[in-house]
Each structure stands twice: as C-alpha cells, then as structure tokens.
C-alpha cells in the first residue's frame, strides 16, 4: 500500500467506506491464518477471533495516523494478531474513558455504582441500532469524533465540510438525534 493509497484509505475509512478494508480482510485472511497456525502463534479458534480484531486495529491506526507506511499489510496483521494472542489483551478496543472521567467527577459525591455486564451488552446493542438509524453523515461525524477522536478541523477536512465550526454544529445535532434514538429504543 503506497503512501498515497494509505491517504485515500484513511479518507474512505473516516467516511465509513469499508470497501478497501474488506478487500484487505479477504485478501490477507488465508495467508495470515496460515502463518499463525504454522508458526503455532495461535490456535484456529484464537486466529478466528484475533484476525477481525487485528483488522479493526489496523483501521483505527490508519485513521489516527499511527500507520504512515504499510509496505506489507500481511506482516502488519500477523504481528498485531501475534501480540493480541500473546498478551491476551483485547482491551484496546474497549475504551471507557468518559465513564471514568464522570466517575472521578462524582467521587466526592460518594458515587460507587458498578454496572453489570448484561446491562453493558444491552447498551452496546442499543447504541449500535441507534447509530444505524442515523444518516450516513451523522454516523461519520459521531464516530470520527467520539471513536477515532479526531479534531473538528480534521473531520471537516476529511469529510469535505466547509469548516470546523460547521462540523461542530453538525456533531451537536447528530449527537442529539443519536441520544433521542437511544431513548426511543428503550434506555
């Protein structure tokens, strides 16, 4: 993947166009599994699990600009898979920063509620449904800001909006629509 292609891929991913990512997924899956299994880096079950996670990490790293050069996607994916298996650390995909921020804020008020897993799983499902009810533009803006943590100016540039302020206004509207959709779905 050339630097130019990587730049286009970054733009596509921010716009939630996963066509190239899907191609990378399909093209490297077989070889990646072959290496993981033949080198005993992972069992078949683990390979199934971590390969998709590795693709998601690659996506995140391209969007965040962490990957500036990708001469060999297969080797990159294998090394991510290997690290995931070895560390048994899939927490990279599970960020809980906002909750921790609010928990810290409430600390002095004696807030000590701990949420159970079932509740969390249900919330993720509802968030997913609510997200898919939004327009493509809203999905792009909300994920670019809250998931990939891009700045408003960068979001505007990548999504072809006239300025960071326009992106900010849109984000505000989209956020309201998303929260309303979540509430309508039952939380």
């Amino acid at each position, binding site marked *: 993947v050339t630097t130019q292609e990587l730049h286009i891929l970054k733009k596509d991913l921010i716009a939630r166009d996963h066509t190239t990512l899907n191609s990378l997924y399909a093209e490297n899956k077989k070889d990646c599994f072959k290496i993981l299994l*033949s080198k005993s880096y992972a069992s078949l079950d683990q390979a199934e699990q971590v390969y998709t996670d590795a693709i998601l990490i690659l*996506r995140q790293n391209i969007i965040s600009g962490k990957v500036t050069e990708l001469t060999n996607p297969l080797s990159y994916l294998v090394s991510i898979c290997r690290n995931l298996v070895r560390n048994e650390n899939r927490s990279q995909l599970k960020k*809980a920063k906002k*909750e921790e921020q609010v928990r810290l804020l409430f600390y002095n008020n004696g807030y000590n509620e701990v949420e159970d897993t079932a509740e969390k799983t249900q919330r993720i499902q509802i*968030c997913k449904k609510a997200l898919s009810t939004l327009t493509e533009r809203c999905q792009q803006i909300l994920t670019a800001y809250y*998931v990939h943590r891009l700045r408003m100016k960068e979001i505007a540039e990548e999504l072809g909006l006239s300025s960071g302020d326009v992106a900010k206004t849109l984000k*505000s509207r989209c956020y309201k629509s998303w929260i309303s959709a979540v509430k309508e779905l039952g*939380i």
Partner: protein
Amino acid sequence: MKLSEKQFDLIHKYLSDGLNSSEKSDFNKHLGSSDFREELMHQARLIDSLAEADASLVRDSLQDKPHLSVVKDEPTAHRPHRSPHSSRRWLMLAGAFIFLGTAFWLMTQNQETQPKKSNLIQLAETYDTPLPPGQVLRGTDEQPAQSKAMQAYANESYEEALAYFRSNTSQSVLDKIYMSNCLIQLGRFEEAKTTLKGMNFQKNDKLKDDADWYMAIAQLGLEDEVGAKTILSVIAQDSDNIYQANAQKILKKLK
C-alpha cells in the same frame, strides 16, 4: 425529571470537553441534582459504548458482506439490503469448509512432522523480553528520528519504531540492537539475525551481551537449535552476563 435543553447542552459539551469557564460553573451547580448526575453518567456510558457499537458494525460488515458486492458509489444509508443468493451461500459454506479443512491439515501436519519446531519458537517467545526502551529525547531537533523511534518502541509500536530506526543514516550498535528487538517482536527472526550480524564491540562492552542474547533468541525463532545452543552455551558460562540464568534454563529445556 426531564432535563432542560440547557442542561442537555451542558452535558454534551462536558463530554466533548468543550465547556467554557461560565458554562463550567453552571455545570458544577447542576451537579447537585441527582437527575443531572444520572443523565451525565448515562450519556458518558453511551459514548463509551459507541466505540464498541461502531466496531460491531464494522465487524458485521466484514463477516457478512463479501467485499466485491459492496457498491462504492451508493451511499450506505440508501443502499438496499440484499439477501445473499442461495448458491453463493453454498459456495461460501463450501469455501469455509475447505479452508477449515486445510487449516486443520496444516496444523496436524505441523505437529506430526516437526514436533521440535513449535517447542523452539515457544522458547523464543517465552524468553524474548524486549530490551527496555532507552531515554526518549523529547523536544530535541538533533536526532528527531531516534527520539520518535524510541517513543514508538516504548509504546510497543515496533513496525513504526523500526521505520524510524531505519530512517536514521548513522545507526549505532545500540540502535541495531533495538532494531533487532523490534524485528523479534514482529516475528521477523531472519531479519533480526542479519541486523545483529557483524557488529564490532569494544572490550568488555556490555552491549555485546545484549547482542548475543537476542541473536540466540532469533536463532530459536528460526528453529536453528544448533546455532542457538552454541551462543547460549557461551552465555551460560559467563557469570558476569545478565542473561546467564536464562541461558542455562533454555539449555536445560533443550536437552
């Protein structure tokens, strides 16, 4: 209690790190209300879940839709949902079956014909603790590539660290040892071995101990038992070598 528009905006801005000083003081006043606090925690959790919801949506798209069927020019929101054709489904099932069969065959083949192979790689993995990162030279323009390389190395971004180390035209012995560490962590043992070869050391240079140790790890990764044993035997006899105990342990396991 339903929150007012203003309260909702304050929560939204707080969670987007966008409160100004007067809004901050308003926000703090509202924290006294349990409804406000409850809504704040609720929305914070929703934002945290957004990453997983998004990952789940992408995961679904990777697993359910064959990539060639994605129509790039059509906006996703208006893209009609297409149920997969039954013959395609059968083809995919057959493909998956063949793939799983091949993977299983490869796995059993590997176990049957090369019982020692995985053992050596496992040893390499068990003992390949990377060399601790050196001092990160923050804010200096003198050696930006080295500084970035070390930062990436400290963050375990070995591919990135390697690229920075390689971009440095005058690589020191230590740089090369760090490069070999990156390569070992990436499972590229042959390149690690090449990087470590032919380095010159001063007498009593402790870096030689590091270089020898990681060369032994690279040999293990390459399943070169004889080569690894030769280096490990030297390390195991050197009481000043910090890797002596580990070398002895590996040699014991290789017997």
